[in-house]
Structures are given as structure tokens and as C-alpha cells.
């Protein structure tokens, strides 16, 4: 009977906590009226995950709340992982927050379904003119601006200066660096114990789509569900170069092609690769984690035949179309996006801010950090890519493009087969 009593005790405890759980109700409810009666509370679902960024966002919200007693903002902290599914459910169930933090490529389908408010009439004119048309283009669907573009990342090359010098290579110091230069440096720095380049391409599509713009490789024509795809020389330029470096020059560490960007950093720190291509945000991580004595530099932005162009896929702030307080939400976002505020968020996240004023602010904040010079320079060539206008891009990327690129980079299929898979796959997805 002791056995039964033990189980009974656990059962009793369970019933007790169950009773308690019935009393627990969440606090999130969109656009609620405050206790003051006239005060409005806006729900702001923030995905900022770095402690410094969370602190920056909180500081901005606190400042707003202190100055605007009638419109209070409440941060609802969420994480990036699983956000798409969460938002689908929130929108379907009518419980989405007023203000939504996400990224341009992922909000296209929400915009297509009519869940996001058109912010064209609410955006501060000074802010509007301070952000490039290319970046605004990345958050414009059917002529409607569906989000404020906040921060962006570019792909950058980080190099171990000592290994380059040991190989007799002059460190590029121009405004840009061509792919040919990258290929030459990678070859020159490849030895018996070191590879010239480590590139984490476990999830290759984003990098391919972004860097292909440097060769005029836009992939898509048209918008929404009517978009068509073309995969020709300009679209294949980047994967073919990487393939050539990996299998002809043998200057890319083969294992790195199957790793994430962060995984490759260990090889970079350990002197096993002379260079690594990373998201620009890694500059801060490298500064923090690189072993003492590692003489690392950020190289100039990569330039293709069409220039040092990359895709702008910014993080975004949108407003729920069903919010009763679209105007108030936009007012808050205009405040959040002012130069100083956006600079503090971008600097904390080690990302490139979308506006000129915020970039100036980051330059001031990062005055003693030379890597930031190149990070900000790489942001100059960011343009809204065609894929952001394509409704089923995310599905195509996950189900077609990523496995096709992975197979090509593993030397399992030819570039012609890659092109066919990308094209045929799109036609299947788009129906």
C-alpha cells in the first residue's frame, strides 16, 4: 500500500497545481484600454534576442511611455524560432499584437493575406527620405508599404591578416573586392594545413540569392503568385564560383560547406582557414570570441559584374491591419525608428541600420571599432531583391532551393541540373 500512497501523493500535488493553473491567465490582449480609461495600450511583439538589444528596446519603450501617457506600449518578448507559425495562428485567431517585429522575406505572405496595415500615409517624411528606395522597395507589396525596415545584414569576408601576409598576399584595401580577388587570395593562402576560405553553407539559399544580385542574378520576374523564374548565367555565377573554389582550386574547406556560419568561426579562430564569409553581425562575435593575438580584419564588400550589390532583407516592424490603433502604432514606430533609437538597436545587434541618421549614430558609437567601417560600407549596396515580391518564395526556398544548392555544393549534381531543379521546382510550387 505504500506504493499507492506515494502515487497518491504525487496525484494530490498534481491536482493542487492544476487548481492553481486554472487561476493563471495571460496578460496579452491586443490593443487593450488601460486602467486610465482613455489610455491605449499597444502590444509590441519584439523578437530582439541579444541582452543589449533587449535593453535598448526597453529603454526606447520606457522613454515613449514616459512621454505619452495616453498611448502606452507593452513589450511582448518572443523568440525568432517558430515565429512564423505563431503569427499565422495569431492572425487566424484574431489575437495578433498591434506591432509585429519580423523580417521582410517572411512577412510577404502575411501581406498577401491582407493581415498587415498599409503604412504609406503614416511614415515620417524625414525618415522616408533618409532610407534608400532600394530598402523601401524590400517592404513594399502591391504599392503598399507594409513595414518599417529597421536593420539589415550583409555578407562579409573576414580574414586572418597574419595568414594572408605569410602567403605574401596584400590585404585588399579598396572600396570593394572582386570575386576574382577572393578566389586568388583563397588559392594563395591554401597550404597543407590551411584552407584559404571557410564558408558555412549548410543553409545556402539566403547567401546565394543575396550575392547573386552582384551579378544581376535576380531569379524572379513579376510579383505575388504570377512571378516567373529564370536561372541563367547571372543566377549561377555565385554557386559556380564557390563550386570551382571547392572542387577545382580546392581552396575552400570542404567540411565548412556543410556547417553553419557560426560553426566555421572555430576553424577561423584556430587558424585552419585564412578567410571566412559571414553575416556582418558576426563582427561583434569575432571581436568578443577571437583568441588573443588573432590579427583579424574585415575585407571590403564583395563585388560582382553588377557591383557590390547584395539583397536587402531587413528586419521589420509592421502593424496588424486589425489593430484599432494603427495610427498610434505608426507614431510609436516613427519614434522607435528615429536616428538615435535605431542606432542603439543596430549597434547592440551588430546589424546595419536602414537610415542614414542611424548609420551616422552607429559610426559615432563604434568609433573605436575598425570592423564597423567595413560593416557599414557593405550596407551601401543593399537593394530590395525581386524574391521579396514573390508570394511563395519561402516555400520554394525551403523545399526546392536549399536541397538543390546543397546537392550542387556537395558535387552531386551539375550546374545545369541545379538550374533545372530551381526552375522546375518553382513551377511546381507556384502551380
Amino acid at each position, binding site marked *: 500500500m505504500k506504493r499507492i500512497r506515494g502515487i497518491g501523493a*504525487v*496525484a494530490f500535488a*498534481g491536482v493542487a497545481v*492544476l487548481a492553481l*493553473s486554472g487561476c493563471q491567465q495571460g496578460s496579452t490582449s491586443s490593443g487593450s484600454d488601460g486602467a486610465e480609461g482613455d489610455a491605449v495600450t499597444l502590444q509590441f511583439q519584439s523578437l530582439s534576442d541579444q541582452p543589449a538589444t533587449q535593453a535598448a528596446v526597453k529603454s526606447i519603450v520606457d522613454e515613449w511611455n514616459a512621454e505619452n501617457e495616453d498611448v502606452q506600449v507593452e513589450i511582448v518578448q518572443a523568440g525568432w524560432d517558430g515565429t512564423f507559425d505563431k503569427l499565422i495562428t495569431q492572425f487566424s485567431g484574431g489575437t495578433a499584437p498591434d506591432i509585429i517585429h519580423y523580417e521582410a522575406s517572411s512577412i510577404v505572405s502575411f501581406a498577401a493575406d491582407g493581415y498587415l496595415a498599409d503604412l504609406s500615409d503614416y511614415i515620417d517624411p524625414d525618415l522616408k527620405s533618409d532610407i534608400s528606395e532600394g530598402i523601401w522597395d524590400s517592404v513594399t507589396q502591391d504599392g503598399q508599404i507594409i513595414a518599417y525596415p529597421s536593420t539589415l545584414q550583409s555578407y562579409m569576408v573576414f580574414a586572418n591578416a597574419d595568414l594572408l601576409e605569410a602567403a605574401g598576399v596584400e590585404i585588399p584595401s579598396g572600396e570593394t573586392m572582386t570575386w576574382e580577388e577572393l578566389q586568388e587570395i583563397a588559392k594563395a593562402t591554401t597550404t597543407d594545413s590551411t584552407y584559404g576560405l571557410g564558408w558555412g553553407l549548410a543553409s545556402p539559399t539566403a547567401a546565394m540569392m543575396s550575392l547573386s544580385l552582384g551579378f544581376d542574378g535576380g531569379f524572379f520576374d513579376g510579383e505575388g503568385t504570377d512571378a516567373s523564374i529564370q536561372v541563367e548565367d547571372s543566377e549561377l555565377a555565385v554557386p559556380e564560383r564557390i563550386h570551382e573554389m571547392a572542387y577545382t582550386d580546392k581552396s575552400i574547406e570542404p567540411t565548412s560547406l556543410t556547417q553553419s556560419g557560426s560553426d566555421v568561426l572555430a576553424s577561423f579562430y584556430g587558424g585552419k582557414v585564412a578567410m571566412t564569409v559571414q*553575416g556582418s*553581425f558576426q563582427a561583434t562575435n569575432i571581436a568578443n570570441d577571437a583568441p588573443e593575438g588573432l590579427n583579424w580584419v574585415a575585407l571590403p564588400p564583395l563585388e560582382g559584374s553588377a557591383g557590390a550589390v547584395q539583397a536587402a532583407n531587413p*528586419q521589420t516592424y509592421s502593424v496588424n491591419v486589425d489593430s484599432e490603433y494603427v495610427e498610434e502604432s505608426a507614431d510609436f514606430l516613427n519614434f522607435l525608428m528615429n536616428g538615435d533609437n535605431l542606432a542603439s538597436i543596430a549597434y547592440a545587434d551588430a546589424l546595419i541600420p536602414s537610415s542614414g541618421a542611424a548609420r551616422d549614430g552607429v559610426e559615432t558609437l563604434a568609433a573605436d571599432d575598425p570592423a564597423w567601417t567595413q560593416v557599414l560600407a557593405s550596407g551601401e549596396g543593399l537593394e530590395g531583391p525581386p524574391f521579396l515580391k514573390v508570394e511563395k518564395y519561402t516555400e520554394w526556398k525551403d523545399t526546392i532551393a536549399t536541397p538543390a544548392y546543397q546537392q550542387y555544393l556537395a558535387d552531386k549534381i551539375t550546374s545545369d541540373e541545379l538550374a533545372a531543379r530551381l526552375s522546375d521546382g518553382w513551377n511546381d510550387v507556384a502551380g
Partner: protein
Amino acid sequence: MITRRPWYGTALMYAALAGFLVFLGFPLLWLLSASFKSSGELNSLAINLLPAEWDFSNYASALARQNLLPAAGNSLLVSLATMVITVLLSMPMAYALARLKGRLRAAGTVWILTSQVFPSILIIIPLFLVLRSINLNDTLFGLILVYVTFTLPFTLWMLQGYVAAIPADLEEAGEMDGASRFTILRRIVLPLLAPGLVATAMFTFVSAWNEFFLALVLLQSPELYTLPIALRSFLGAEGQTQLGPLAAGAILATIPSLIIFTILQKKLTGGMLAGAVKG
């Protein structure tokens, strides 16, 4: 006549057992080690089982930053409640399923199997709408109900196997001694079913403890987040992972599970039926 196992047989058995323990325990050991490593060491090529320098800041940042303790409390509450309700509901149902004959039993079996077919993502939006209509979305109680619904079919299936293993002769013997159906259940079946109940309880607890997707979608208030949601917040945009704090958080998240298992595993003793019925 009992033949003694040769010494090398025993040695092999212990070696296999030790190997199995290492296989199971190494990931946990590595996780523990990672939780005390600095960011620089975690991002280096050095493979040290023990940290080069013990760094406790991962625990500090895990506890301070990601609201882990309240999330652990929520997870514990939800998991225990799910476990208790599921076990209480599945016990009589499993007995009926195992002992009754006829169409109802067949229908019950079909229901159990059918309910396992649908992936949760398929029904998440209707589920969300239903919960919202009864004001149970964004509540732990609503999440518990959903977990019970999802775990009940399998636990029922599991438990009815345990019931079926109890010889009906024992119940018949009780009946002949004049015991009522309820007395038979309470005095004979329930004690013999204890290991099965514990196994079922453990399965239910772990299922609820580890569940991520439903909690992610159904809970919107940060103060109600469960541990898996809190831990996932260590994964950032662009695939960034804060490995040290994540490892520290995962270690902290493992502790309640270990305590529950330590309490329950003692009850998981087999061989209770030995000698109950003559062959």
C-alpha cells in the same frame, strides 16, 4: 538446477552496461561541461571534456536574462497536471478497454489509432479558435487540456497493455471471496498496475515537459511561457546560438525532470506478479 554464469559472462555484461551508461551519459556530461565554458572556448577547435577555465557567467545570464525560473515553474505545473489528469482518466478507461469485449472496445481501439494519425500542425488553428471561444487561449489550463487530449490516446494504449498482463484469475479469485468490482479494482488490480501507472505517468510527464510547438502557439504572454519556449529564445535571428547560456539553461531545465524520475523510478519494479498464479 541453476547453472552459474561464467565469470567472463558477468564481466561482459558489466562492460556492456558500462558502455551503455557512457553512451547515454556522455551527452549530458558534455552539456554540463559546455555550460561552464566561456564563449571563446566554446567557439574554439579545442575539444576539452573539462573547461579550461570554469566560467559561471552562463548560469547567471541564463537565469537573469531569459526568465528561466518562472518558465520552469510553468513547465512543472503543466507537466504535473497533465500527468495526473491523464493517469486518472486513462486508468478506468484502460481497464475497460482491456477487459471488455465487443464493439465498443473495437471502436475505442480504432479511435485511439485514428487520433494518432493527425499531426498537431494540421489542427493547430482550429484548436486555437476553439480555445479562444471558451477563453482558454493564453492560459496554462487551456494548454493542460490540450496536452491531456494529445497524450491520452497513447497512454490509454500503453496502460491497457499493462492491464491485459494482469491475470484475470486473480480477479476471479477475488470475486469468489465475495469482493465487489470496486474492491477488486482497488485491492487487486490497482496495486498490480502500479508499475504501469508509473511508466505511463513518466511518459506523460516527459511528453508535456518537452513539448514546444503547441506551447509556442497557444501561449502568448511571456509570463506563461514554458521551458522549451524560454530555451528557444537563446536561438536568435540569422541562426545565432548563445551556446553557453543555452547549455546552462538546458542543465537547469533537466533538474526537475531528474527529481521526478528519481522519485518515480523506485516504483518501477517488475516481478510483482511472480508467484501470484500457479503455472
